């Protein structure tokens, strides 16, 4: 186990000029020893590159990687003592399941008895005990991926175990099982785990801390509630949640903040969000209010969908391009508005976020805590 410090940038091209040439823009972050982390972002955002830099398969073009304070940038994955599991199962065809699991240990010259114990333990955890003597090549895709996972977990002394979307090839019902298994293994072995995924549910259920990435930038590191309640960047609000956060263009002046021509914040409140250009609110927190209530804007319902336990209502607000979505609970006696109805949407409350240049305007100490936001090193 090791604490991993990253302070780096990476470009695959030799002489990067603009930001677009970088696969990873300058970033500085720390994975604490024994923590479970997820790197979350859409395809091509640089999360796999970051993972490969941690494991040592890719050498960063700028900056360095430190394990427990020791610079390991120039070291191979083997020297770093990293375990990594890939998106598609990698197994050694000619070996049995047991031999596959033993391979990383055998290469490091462990005594046979010790190897047998370890392999037995891991096989039991992953429910592979019955298949230990079967040839790995003849198994189904999910069993093969379990072997890959097992090879990643079989060494006790690893600095960290890295997962690169390991559950892509697994059936949905098995996905739940394996994810639970991984979580359980994390609790038992207390390894440092870093998990790459583009699936927010996977990231939020697996990890203690989620790193949200987009276009080569890590825009926020936080726990699931933090990412949900206080997205540091509009991308996080948009990417996390289903559906994502509503963003409405706002106009700020000394006199107050207005959205769609209505003043939603008075002069006194608006002082705290000076310069805000965007108001963000989760569909879960948009409420229907009396027409003209403070902090509300009028809209016309365009769509109302029954999602089972709640209704998802979309409303068009004058001057706002995307429809504003609201989750309306059907408990109680409230009638759900139908398409064409005029409604009043309450946008301002304790869960409302304000953004300037796509970045959250800090409201209190927790927002401003530098440990929470990703620091960006200046390009070298």
């Amino acid at each position, binding site marked *: 186990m090791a604490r991993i410090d990253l302070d780096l940038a990476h470009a695959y091209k030799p002489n990067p000029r603009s930001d677009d040439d970088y696969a990873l823009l300058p970033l500085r972050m720390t994975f604490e020893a024994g923590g479970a982390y997820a790197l979350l972002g859409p395809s091509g955002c640089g999360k796999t590159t970051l993972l490969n830099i941690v494991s040592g*398969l890719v050498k960063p073009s700028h900056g360095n990687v430190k394990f427990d304070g020791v610079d390991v940038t120039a070291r191979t994955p083997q020297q770093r003592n990293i375990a*990594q599991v*890939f998106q*598609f199962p*990698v197994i050694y*065809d000619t070996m049995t399941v047991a031999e596959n699991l033993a391979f990383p240990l055998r*290469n490091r010259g462990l005594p046979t008895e010790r190897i047998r114990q370890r392999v037995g333990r891991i096989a039991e955890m992953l429910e592979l005990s019955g298949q230990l003597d079967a040839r790995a090549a003849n198994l189904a895709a999910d069993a093969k991926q379990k072997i890959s996972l097992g090879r990643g977990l079989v060494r006790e002394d690893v600095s960290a175990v890295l997962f690169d979307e390991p559950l892509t090839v697994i059936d949905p019902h098995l996905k739940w099982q394996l994810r639970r298994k991984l979580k359980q293994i994390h609790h038992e072995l207390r390894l440092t785990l870093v998990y790459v995924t583009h699936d927010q549910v996977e990231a939020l259920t697996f990890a203690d801390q989620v790193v949200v990435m987009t276009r080569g930038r890590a825009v926020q590191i936080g726990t699931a509630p933090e990412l949900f309640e206080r997205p540091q960047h509009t991308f996080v609000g948009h990417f996390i949640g289903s559906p994502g956060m509503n963003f409405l263009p706002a106009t700020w002046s000394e006199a107050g903040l207005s959205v769609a021509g209505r003043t939603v914040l008075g002069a006194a409140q608006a002082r705290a969000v000076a310069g805000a250009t965007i108001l963000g609110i989760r569909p879960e927190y948009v409420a229907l209010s009396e027409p003209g209530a403070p902090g509300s804007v009028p809209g016309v319902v365009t769509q109302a969908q029954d999602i089972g336990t709640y209704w998802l209502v979309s409303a068009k607000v004058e001057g706002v391009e995307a429809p504003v979505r609201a989750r309306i609970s059907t408990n109680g006696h409230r009638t759900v508005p139908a398409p064409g109805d005029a409604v009043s949407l309450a946008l301002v409350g304790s869960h409302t976020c304000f953004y300037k240049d796509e970045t959250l305007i800090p409201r209190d100490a927790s927002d401003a805590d530098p440990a929470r936001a990703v620091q960006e090193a200046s390009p070298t």
Partner: protein
Amino acid sequence: MKPVNQKAWFLILPVVLCVAFSAVLPLMTVVNYSVQDIISPERRVFVGTDWFKSVMRDDDLQGALLRQIGFSLAVLLIEIPLGIALALAMPARGWKASAVLVIVAISLLIPWNVVGTIWQIFGRTDIGLLGAAVHALGFDYDYTGNPTHAWLTVLVMDVWHWTPLVALLCYAGLRAIPDAYYQAASIDGATKFAVFRYIQLPKLRGVLMIAVLLRFMDSFMIYTEPFVLTGGGPGNSTTFLSQYLTQKAVGQFDLGPAAAFSLIYFLIILLLCFVLYNWMQRVGRGADAAQEG
């Protein structure tokens, strides 16, 4: 009862016709020759299996068969490992990869009889680079007079001509292995040899099977190059099966024995390919299958 639809037979009729004209009918002609003594087009005598018996007892043929088997085994033992080694050493990407591919493929583009001619001159001790060089090293090299030298020269020529085919097949096989395998091996701490033994070799099984079968069949039927290079000599030392057959059929016009021998030749190739193919399939399925069986 299930209804039986006989119409499907019509769908395979074209294949049956093609195979009949391209393979079955010619083969049957050979079978026809092999059981008759054709004295002239009008006079022929049915002789049963006499030709087969006499051909099997023929010392020249047995000699040619042994030489042939020895030659094909030597070809496989040298060309397959050498081809794999070449493929492993070839650069994977960039302009170097393209350049090396073209250079390696050159010998495959040369017509068989030209290969023979090239080596005929190459091996001469007066003007040939190889012959003169070997001579200069103090060996009394003479492929036209010394049977061992002739046999070795034919072997080296075949290795030069056909190892690139094995190398190209293996190269294609190696490029088809996803990077993740190498990355995983590096993370598992595998040595270079372990990577070869547990990743590259198993993944090359398919192309190696093709390479072994192709090289075996081709080398077993080798004709043109030794014919041009040594003419089968000195003595009979480089007379392989197909040359022996040509001598019989075209040289002496002994159609009966030649036909009988053709059939035996055909069966030998069929049998050996069958054995090789099944053996390689088994190797692929691995040790535990062998233990059970």
